[in-house]
């Protein structure tokens, strides 16, 4: 009896997985995932070393020129995979170092909480040494003395795998003093969080790391000038750091070649799809792969649905339409369409879905996760939720949609300390642009008592 129940429980246990078998992946074309095993087990140190592991560290530390790492990253045009797409090489070139500057920190942002995003979990759970290798290169290039992996509290399996891999790396001399005989010393600890989406914002993350509330900080100074405990600090996403070893090992031209003539953004990307499709999942594909190609890999929509709209990379990106499926998904192209590539994991909205209800869900998320530091975000988002819920119930009042426009505009870039409010505004503004008639249908002819109700946060 126990066996039966256990097998039922295990059958619905969530496991991170890549939907490309080993035989379809190679070192030359799939730098992020070629080492992953079909059985989904973690690649530990012995196997990692057999598969060219830590060779980039040997090469870079052997050459002894940290600046060369940054130059190669810049030339390869590695753009931040956490969602913002900022040039990783440029970010590293701005870190203060040398002279009497103290050595700072290399922080991996592993606080994966963007709704619709499940890529960093795979890299950490199945291939922890690639992240460690990337962090060593990052530390060397930025003269960081210590590294933190800022991991969301719910990723317990990631924590277990990373901690075991860190110990393996330490025991083998890839972490600690005098790494690989280079004289360079560096070590890493996993810092496990305790919830709150805002911790993924890099300055809020630093406050959280310091044991404070995760409110964002004013910029400048940027973390590279004054970050954790006032020291130069570099914050990079998991996938970004996982890109670095292969770039250093194979060079900028090779990396640029991975995406061919699809886009100027180099390399490959973990793309994915979630929502009502036949095969939701993750694939490593050339940068600039189109939405249609990715949706086809996911087998298209299920249950006879057709595509109404899609988010290209998480809840804080703007809605795109079926006509945008032919565009290459790179940072600049998606940006020109009034959205953002974000994390590159598509969320699919079926034709049967009310956009007003979906926006209610999205904005309730942003309202709940606001840290409360800035007024447009703290007060504007619950107000937005209230208006959306009234519209969903057909109890909206004349002027509500214009009010939504204004609340979203007040959350725009530059009006708050961080990108949380602009992230909440973008899906709302694009939904209002593309599906305004659905919102208009929620307005009752006369003014009613709906807006006097308590703000119904949490009752999604």
């Amino acid at each position, binding site marked *: 009896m126990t066996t039966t129940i256990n097998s039922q429980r295990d059958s619905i246990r969530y496991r991170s997985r890549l939907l490309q078998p080993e035989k379809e992946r190679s070192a030359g074309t799939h730098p992020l995932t070629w080492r992953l095993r079909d059985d989904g087990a973690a690649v530990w140190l012995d196997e990692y070393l057999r598969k060219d592991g830590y060779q980039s560290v040997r090469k870079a530390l052997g050459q002894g020129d940290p600046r060369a790492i940054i130059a190669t990253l810049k030339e390869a045009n590695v753009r931040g995979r956490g969602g913002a797409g900022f040039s990783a090489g440029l970010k590293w070139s701005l870190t203060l170092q040398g002279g009497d500057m103290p050595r700072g920190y290399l922080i991996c942002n592993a606080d994966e909480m963007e709704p*619709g995003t499940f890529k960093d979990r795979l890299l950490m759970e199945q291939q922890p040494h690639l992240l460690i290798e990337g962090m060593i290169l990052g530390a060397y290039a930025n003269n960081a003395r210590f590294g933190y992996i800022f991991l969301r509290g719910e990723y317990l399996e990631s924590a277990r795998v990373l901690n075991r891999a860190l110990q393996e790396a330490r025991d083998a001399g890839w972490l600690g003093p005098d790494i690989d005989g280079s004289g360079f010393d560096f070590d890493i600890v996993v810092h496990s969080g305790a919830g709150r*989406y805002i911790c993924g914002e890099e300055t809020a993350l630093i406050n959280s790391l310091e044991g404070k509330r995760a409110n964002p900080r004013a910029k400048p100074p940027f973390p590279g000038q004054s970050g954790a405990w006032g020291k130069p600090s570099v914050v990079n996403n998991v996938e970004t750091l996982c890109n670095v070893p292969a770039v250093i090992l194979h060079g900028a031209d090779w990396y640029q070649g991975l995406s061919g003539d699809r886009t100027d953004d180099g390399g490959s990307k973990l793309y994915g799809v979630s929502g009502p499709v036949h095969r939701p999942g993750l694939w490593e594909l050339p940068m600039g792969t189109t939405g249609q190609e990715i949706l086809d890999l996911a087998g298209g929509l299920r249950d006879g649905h057709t595509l109404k709209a899609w988010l290209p990379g998480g809840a804080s990106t703007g809605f795109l339409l079926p006509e945008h499926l032919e565009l290459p998904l790179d940072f600049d192209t998606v940006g020109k369409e009034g959205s953002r590539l974000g994390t590159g994991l598509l*969320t699919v909205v079926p034709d049967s879905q009310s956009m007003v209800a979906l926006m209610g869900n999205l904005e309730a998320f942003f309202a709940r996760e606001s840290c409360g530091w800035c007024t447009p975000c703290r007060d504007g988002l619950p107000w937005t939720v209230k208006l959306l819920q009234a519209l969903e119930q057909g109890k909206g009042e004349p002027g509500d949609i214009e009010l939504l426009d204004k609340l979203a505009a007040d959350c725009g870039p530059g009006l708050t300390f961080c990108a949380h409010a602009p992230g909440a505004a973008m899906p709302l503004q694009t939904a209002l642009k593309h599906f305004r008639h659905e919102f208009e249908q929620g307005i009752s002819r006369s003014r009613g008592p709906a807006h006097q109700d308590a703000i119904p946060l949490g009752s999604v």
Partner: protein
Amino acid sequence: MAATDATTGIIGSDAFRLHADDEQAMRQEVHHFEQPRAACIEALKIVQRRHGWVPDGAIPAIARVLGVGPGDVEAVATFYSLIFRQPVGRHVILVCDSSSCFLSGFAELKQALVTQLGIDYGQTTGDDRFTLLPVCCLGACDGAPALMIDDDTYGPVTPGDLPGLLEEYP
């Protein structure tokens, strides 16, 4: 009942003694950072692992270990969603209510939980067995709808899976 300690002026430090092992674990954690305060979140989690939640008296106790004011510890304790400042059940269910789950059957799953447990968000069953809470995107979107029970992540979970699954958490 919360009481005021005459010597410290700390409210609510009622009969809480920090376990020696926990204090030791906190002092270990401090070594990872430039300043002891950074161990605050981990210290709260250490207390929570033993007690299930963070009792009032733990706040000044942690503050003493880290050398900061109790207000600083409380500010952190009340900010983070996975730190519980009220008692919770023996098992905590975190239901992902983010967009991918919302589009993949979250509403039915949540309703089934509410019906079977007889509680809503923020509540604990009468037998102190389960507490139900929402959580933001669990990063299991290819397994939506997803939920966590204690340390275990499940997905996709259908309402029909629930009776057998909940049975596993006595």
